[in-house]
């Protein structure tokens, strides 16, 4: 369903479009459609081909890791959040599942409109790409801030070192590359460990059981 006046106004007011002209904002808003979701309804699953990206208008969504043997809630999506854009940027598949924590309204932008809005043949394409890049860069900074705090804290400890997995370490090092290329990713995770509290260990034990 195409957007109502208030929904269009919501899209035009999103922070990511702050550098857009009024005409460009209207153009972007005209490409979205509105989708109602009932509590518990699934929007996409891990491994799905990405056909759209979304902005949450109302309600609340949950992101779950739903790969083999794993079913873990990892984060929530709140009104104003954009999500599902990474798979459209890199052409990959969904890496997680998204479902409605309660009745919600999402605004959907198809991959075709996404590609058209991001086309370098128009000035707006430059702005659209820059806005999305700012978002993913910010996501990475946030993630890596957490990783760095954990790593530095744990590296400072002198506890016995855990066994290491070279492949995992290498991929972590690549993954955790942050603001300055792969610098933080260069943390030697041989020197990083997290001590399990008794409560954690009990929970871990139960989960494995």
């Amino acid at each position: 369903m195409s957007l109502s006046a208030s929904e269009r106004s919501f899209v035009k007011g999103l922070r990511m479009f702050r550098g857009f002209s009024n005409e460009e904002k209207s153009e972007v808003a005209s490409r979205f459609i509105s989708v109602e979701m009932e509590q518990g309804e699934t929007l996409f699953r891990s491994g799905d081909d990405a056909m759209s990206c979304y902005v949450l208008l109302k309600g609340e969504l949950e992101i779950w890791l739903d790969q083999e043997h794993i079913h873990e809630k990892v984060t929530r999506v709140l009104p104003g959040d954009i999500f599902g854009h990474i798979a459209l940027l890199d052409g990959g598949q969904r890496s997680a599942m998204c479902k409605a924590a309660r009745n919600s309204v999402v605004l959907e932008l198809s991959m075709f409109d996404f590609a058209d809005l991001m086309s370098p043949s128009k000035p707006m394409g430059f702005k659209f790409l820059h806005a999305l890049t700012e978002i993913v860069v910010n996501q990475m900074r946030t993630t890596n801030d957490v990783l760095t705090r954990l790593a530095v804290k744990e590296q400072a400890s002198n506890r016995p070192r855990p066994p290491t997995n070279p492949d995992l370490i290498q991929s972590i090092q690549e993954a955790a590359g942050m603001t300055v290329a792969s610098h933080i990713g260069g943390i030697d995770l041989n020197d990083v460990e997290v001590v399990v509290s008794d409560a954690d260990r009990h929970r871990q034990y139960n989960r494995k059981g």
Partner: protein
Amino acid sequence: MCYIWGVLPREHIAQVLTSIPMFSGLDKQELESIIRLTRSVGFEAGQIICRQHEPGDSMFIIATGRAEVQIAKEPGRFIPVAKLGPGELIGELALIDAQPRSAQVTALSKLDALQIMRVDFQKLQEKFHPATYKVTRRIALTVCARLRATNQNIVSAINPNNEEPLEELPAPRTKSFWQGLVEKVRGVQG
């Protein structure tokens, strides 16, 4: 303060830039536009190239020499986390935004680099120059790949198939970095 080199031969600068994935997709004219944005800078061993928490205003491409990336463990005390050499980048995300540097980078030897200021990159971007589109897109793809890899590492950490056998659980009181991260996330979410 760093010192400014004499002007390097364009071929040399072009050679350095085209060896880096971020610039490898540029055609000759686009590359020329990026070369015009660069200035050659040099550092002596021990000089700080960029400081942690300071707003990033530029990126560096190391041409010669080595540098060390350091993170503050506590005020004034840094721990080394990586070493960098020729062809590697420092602070490339500063082309996208002005967020604070996440680490300090110090020259380990005499080091020569190419510097690109964000303000200059933005001026070119405001002219909708295709080189800036390609570079931005490359940065976006690199960041997406890192986010996906991070996600996959978290999955690996919580996948029961990757965990140690049940009988070994009570003995070690440690778990992997990623398992620890997962526990923290769960803790935050209650």
